[in-house]
């Protein structure tokens, strides 16, 4: 479907980093979308490993009943920081990294619209990460109020809480700037001929995600700022004794928090929608309905927030509204899954690493979708709220969903980034280890939650011992499996089978018209896109 009217290699010649600073200064001062995309991804992988170490410490403590490894106070710090680091440090920046690398290549733009702001939005992240991780070492340790930072518990915390608040502020500014950049790039810098409805789906999902980010990150900033002033400046936003309301915090937080969930999954849908047609060698089924489904999910995400709060005691009418609205999300999500399956149907499929990960994503993510539907039913949710059932649910959609899609995308575009094909054996090993250990870790948590094990506890009643032991073994397997990915990437950067411009047989799109690795500057003259 894609043809190009001139040779892109021509535009790339002689422009690499000849006239920029070299060494460390190259990375600090770079305004190149590819360099910045690379830095985003390296940063997010470091944060992923840090959050993973916290997760494994949590699982080590939960291996057996009783307190063995950490004290309850530190345990709560670990669960809190694991959540914050994974959400704001690992998953979100990884997707921004993908957007930086791929959006300009996919729409035929020479760079992001605001190249200097792009540099700034990345370089805000390391200081934020230092504040966040450094909070472990201040008196009283890191915040232990849960990643949701519910008041009034968060008001009780030590100065680690203040560091977390400032880290969130900084990461929020970074996200908003990144999102503005993506919106402007997509709306203004598409190659001639590429109309909105001919854009690759990854660009569509990121465009919608960027609007969500711009809408909700300020809401989170407001919520944590109110906690900050409640803590230090005598305000009572969330203190009933001063006329405030602790539940108002939850409303504000989840007005951010629910769209945030989709911020972390919509770009994943986009990645998978690029990969499935490539390896099925067949166009994406229902392109238009994919776009509409993504937009519907995004709009619905603003009216479902209180399904996180069914146990706070809202009126029956409120519970019913939020229950119905939440159930409705199953419809566009279902449409997406059906479209992917229909794309595979009567294709000519091969299962290289990216396709394995994408297929695994559909399979396991859908299980998380089903438990999401079950959680949407208010009376059932009241039973499973704040239990391991919910822990299982959101790890099925965030790990098997967002993370698996990120790996799928990484294997898919590594040839374009490095110029070498990823090692197929290691890629497959990484996939099979991950999917098996993932399920060993998280599937038993459904049983734990149903049977009544609360989440965020360092110790538990004896009937939960067996499944917890199993989950811990799975978690260590899963954690170690991720090191395979590191090996794959390092090998890929250092050498390996040369990648063609069109690295995969069925791949279509402008990014496959430039050489692999993509030269430092691409599309300095806009290509003409004939879809």
């Amino acid at each position, binding site marked *: 479907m894609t043809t190009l009217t001139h040779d892109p290699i021509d535009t790339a010649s002689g422009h690499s980093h000849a006239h920029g600073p070299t060494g460390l200064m190259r990375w600090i001062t770079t305004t190149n979308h590819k360099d910045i995309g690379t830095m985003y991804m390296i940063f997010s992988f470091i944060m992923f490993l840090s959050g993973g170490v916290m997760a494994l410490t949590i699982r080590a403590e939960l291996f057996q009943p*009783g307190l063995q490894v950490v004290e309850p106070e530190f345990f709560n710090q670990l669960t809190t920081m694991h959540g914050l680091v994974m959400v704001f440090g690992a998953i979100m920046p990884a997707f921004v990294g993908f957007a930086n690398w791929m959006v300009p290549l996919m729409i035929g733009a020479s760079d992001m619209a605001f190249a200097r702001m792009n540099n700034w939005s990345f370089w805000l992240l390391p200081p934020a990460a230092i504040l966040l991780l450094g909070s472990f070492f201040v008196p009283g340790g890191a915040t232990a109020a849960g990643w949701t930072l519910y008041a009034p518990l968060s008001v009780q915390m030590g100065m680690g809480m203040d560091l977390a608040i400032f880290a969130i502020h900084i990461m929020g500014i970074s996200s908003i700037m990144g999102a503005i950049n993506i919106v402007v790039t997509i709306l203004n810098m598409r190659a001639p001929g590429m109309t909105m409805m001919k854009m690759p789906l990854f660009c569509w999902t990121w465009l919608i995600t960027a609007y969500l980010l711009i809408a909700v990150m300020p809401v989170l900033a407001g919520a944590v700022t109110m906690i900050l002033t409640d803590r230090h400046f005598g305000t009572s936003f969330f203190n009933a004794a001063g006329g405030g309301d602790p539940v108002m915090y939850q409303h504000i937080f989840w007005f951010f928090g629910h769209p945030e969930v989709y911020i972390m999954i919509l770009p994943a849908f986009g990645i998978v929608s690029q990969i499935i047609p490539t390896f099925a060698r067949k166009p994406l089924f229902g392109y238009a309905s994919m776009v509409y489904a993504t937009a519907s999910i995004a709009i619905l995400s603003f009216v479902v927030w209180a399904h996180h709060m069914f146990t*706070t005691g809202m009126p029956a009418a409120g519970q019913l509204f939020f229950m119905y609205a939440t159930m409705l999300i199953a419809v566009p999500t279902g449409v997406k899954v059906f479209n992917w399956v229909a794309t595979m149907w009567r294709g*000519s499929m091969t299962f290289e690493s990216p396709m394995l990960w994408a297929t695994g994503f559909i399979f396991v993510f859908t299980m998380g979708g089903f438990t999401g539907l079950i959680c949407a*039913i208010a009376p059932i949710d009241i039973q499973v709220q704040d239990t391991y059932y919910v822990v299982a649910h959101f790890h099925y959609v965030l790990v098997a969903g967002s993370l698996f899609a990120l790996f799928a995308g990484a294997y898919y575009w590594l040839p374009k980034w490095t110029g070498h094909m990823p090692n197929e054996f290691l890629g497959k090993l990484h996939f099979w280890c991950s999917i098996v250990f993932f399920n060993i870790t998280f599937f038993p948590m459904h049983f734990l939650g149903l*049977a009544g094990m609360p989440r*965020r506890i360092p110790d538990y009643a004896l009937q939960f011992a*067996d499944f917890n032991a199993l989950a811990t073994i799975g978690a260590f397997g899963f954690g170690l499996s991720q090191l395979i990915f590191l090996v794959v990437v390092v090998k890929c950067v250092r050498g390996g089978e040369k990648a063609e411009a069109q690295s995969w047989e069925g791949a279509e799109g402008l990014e496959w018209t430039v050489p692999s690795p993509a030269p430092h500057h691409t599309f300095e003259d806009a290509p003409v896109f004939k879809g």
Partner: protein
Amino acid sequence: MATSAHLLIVYLPGVDMGFASRITASALPIAYAACVSAQDAPSRYNLQPPVTGIATEIYSMHTLMLIICLVIFVGVFGVMFWSVIHHRKSRGAVAANFHENTAVEIAWTVVPILILLGMAWPATKTVIAMKDTSSPDITIKATGYQWKWGYDYLQGEGEGIRFLSNASTPREQIEGKAEKGAHYLLEVDNPVVVPVGKKVRVLTTAADVIHSWWVPAFGVKQDAIPGFIRDTWFRAEQEGIYRGNCAELCGKDHGFMPIEVHVVSAERYSAWVQGRLALTAAAKVDDAREWGLGELVERGRVVFEANCAACHQADGKGLPPAFPALDGSPLVQGDKAAQIDLVLKGKQGTAMMAFGAQLSDADLAAVITYTRNAWSNVSGEAVQPVEVAAGRGN
């Protein structure tokens, strides 16, 4: 509760078995859960056996949802895996070129909506029933504290009863120095007692941070929010002991504030009420009389273990900076009026709560006396209940 023998079978393996056998145990067939019908036996694979009408509705609604989801799951992934196996390039499959079909796309939008409507109907009825807290036989207020529950019987038989309910699992069991008991972390010193078959309305609130009062077998989970009162209700249809936990992260010992409800016959309930009211009368006498230093310290040690040691630690060293040491503390060694005032009213913005609302004058006098005469603190002076009562007036 003739199930203790059975419980031993279920519980003990978790304690001493090796890794391998524990993993095997977790792979026990799901049918096992179904045959554990005794009310007190722990559930392992599914929601706990319900003992109220609401919990029963939730249980069957969950089963129904699970079946519907499984059917859709098998359908969708049957198609996907059939395609994965047969539509492979290596099997000579040639890609078709279709990429839309309006009829199919409308069908898979509309059919799910119809399925959802079918799911929403029973759920709506249950939501409305759960919210109907009108005309209860007994009303109990549950107050969440860091980290225990307080109960006030506000209306119905037993009106006027109030007590605190602390986790009673010994510290040695948690630290692995003693074998863990059958109800490890699910047992309390003063359980809630309610009569069978009566509608019990539970008002929830909290003194410090948000907690959540949860008894799975009743299908009841209601957040306890400081400064606000929420309510929920249950009517237990079966006598027995039902156990739950605090379900909202509330700080350090969130995992150690269980809920234990005894559902008993009407006669046993009346007897329990009489006993409780007699204790209340005795407490009044304690609050009025003059105490000796020795008996205050002795009682104070017990009160300290139950209410203070979680933060300030049994050795009085605390866990600074969050939980300050009492041993050697200038406040504890200083003027007793200041200490009485702090213990009664708590310290805003910290985990130090206002104990005035929780403990009797005698208990407060005892525990303050204890801290002033324990470890390296040697004031040698007693704090009398009447002094605490006077402190309440300030």
